[in-house]
């Protein structure tokens, strides 16, 4: 199609994501705000989408694109899991995301973090940014607010933290980013995935840690 590629004026998910890989469990954490430029279409979006029982994905970028991709991958992964007759691997889910994101990279604006637990490698985090790269990382951030917390995550993350330390770290990171990024805000959603299941938590606006220096 010869038209110039203008970014779609649809809703954009701009927010911060930071799943932290931790053995054996993994907290996922997201802030919620769907913005149509100056108007917030949904101030309590759930950007933590379950793909399978123990696999979640954090969505950033265009809401329509990421919802559509997540639906497609949920279907593909469910089918694959039934064929195997066992829970799917997180790496498989991440590869399915990467396949869609890379093939349609010209048309899509989707930055996704896939995180979950499986029996083979335990807790894992895979990053599938815009363009369709796939890389496994112990800790990853994404979204428009992520630029503000790279330093925070680099300095505060230590391997082999406990679950509660991880949850605190991610909640703090997202709160800091929400403080500074105009497109992020609302509530903070956390999900902790382990062998025993998924534990979801919401931190409302008035319960967020306060960091304001002025």
């Amino acid at each position: 199609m010869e038209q110039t590629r203008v970014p779609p004026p649809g809703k954009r998910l701009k927010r911060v994501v930071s799943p932290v890989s931790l053995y054996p469990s993994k907290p996922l954490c997201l802030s919620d705000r769907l913005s149509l430029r100056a108007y917030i279409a949904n101030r309590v979006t759930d950007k933590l989408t379950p793909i399978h029982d123990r696999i979640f994905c954090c969505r950033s970028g265009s809401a329509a694109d990421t919802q559509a991709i997540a639906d497609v991958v949920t279907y593909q992964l469910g089918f694959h899991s039934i064929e195997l007759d066992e829970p799917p691997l997180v790496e498989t889910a991440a590869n399915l995301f990467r396949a869609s994101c890379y093939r349609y990279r010209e048309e899509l604006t989707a930055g996704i973090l896939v995180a979950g637990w499986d029996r083979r490698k335990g807790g894992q985090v895979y990053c599938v940014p815009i363009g369709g790269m796939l890389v496994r990382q112990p800790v990853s951030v994404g979204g428009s607010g992520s630029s503000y917390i790279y330093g925070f995550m680099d300095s505060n993350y230590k391997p082999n933290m406990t679950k509660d330390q991880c949850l605190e770290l991610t909640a703090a990171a997202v709160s800091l980013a929400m403080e500074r990024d105009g497109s992020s805000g609302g509530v903070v959603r956390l999900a902790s995935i382990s062998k025993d299941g998924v534990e979801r938590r919401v931190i409302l606006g008035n319960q967020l840690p306060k960091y304001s220096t002025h």
Partner: protein
Amino acid sequence: MIKNTQCYRPRTDLLLGKKKKKKKKAKKAKKKKKKAKKKKSTSCTSGKHKAHFTKMATLAVRQSPVGGFSFENCKRNAVLEGEANKVGYSLPAARKTGTTICGVVFKDGVILGADTRATEGMIVADKNCSKIHYISPNIYCCGAGTAADTEMTTQIISSNLELHALSTGRVPRVATANRMLKQMLFRYQGYIGAALVLGGVDCNGPHLYSIYPHGSTDKLPYVTMGSGSLAAMAVFEDRYKPDMEEEDAKRLVRDAIAAGIFNDLGSGSNIDLCVITKGKLDYIRPHDEANKKGVRTGDYKYKRGTTSVLTKSVTALNLEVVEETVLTMDTS
């Protein structure tokens, strides 16, 4: 906002007064189009004649999904626009409904509300149009954006959903309608300008979704869409409470739409409501005539005899009856 709906193909060969270009014919032959019934126009003579539109066959229901995105019609639209502009004509603009639509979930069900003004640019095209569309007996959908798009999209999904309900043997769920709508809108990448508020009650309770033209959806307890959505959302954010009674919820929706009507130029006229509960459906049109046309208090007509007659002369005109025809009136 799209310039041409998919059902119409403007006859630019008649508009421009020359034969269709060969390369366009080849392109059309290559594309896998649905069957098109081409009607030859016999009345187009001068260049001043308005473009004659032929209608393509309606979209096939339950079309098997084609992989990827199909931009064939966008290419065609761009070519047509270029050609029309060269000659000095502009393609007709799609009629939009600057709108306020909203929905709220209350204790037993959902209430959908909409205004009734349809605008064409700065003119009110329809003072009392119906924006709450039927999807299934337990699911209704309000539409904002391009009027034709919302109308057609809801009709397509309604018919597909009925087929689906017949083949599953179950009452259709709101989530199904939501999936069908979002997948169709995503496939067209926002070129179908339909922003919808979908609400209904099914076996799992009352549900309310908002669906944007690019295909993203949100499931929320209260949603607003359209140009007046900010005004309506302000009312909702102030007064919404979970598990409201029906009367309170109706009042809230009425006030939200009224806020949109009085504070947004694109919305106006009356307020339509649709109350959907488990056993009952109330399609209240109009619920509130917020903008009734006033009655004139004075009149400039004068009574007979106000002006006195001074002289009067009657002249008979000699006319011949040339032709007499009798037209039967159908009074059945």
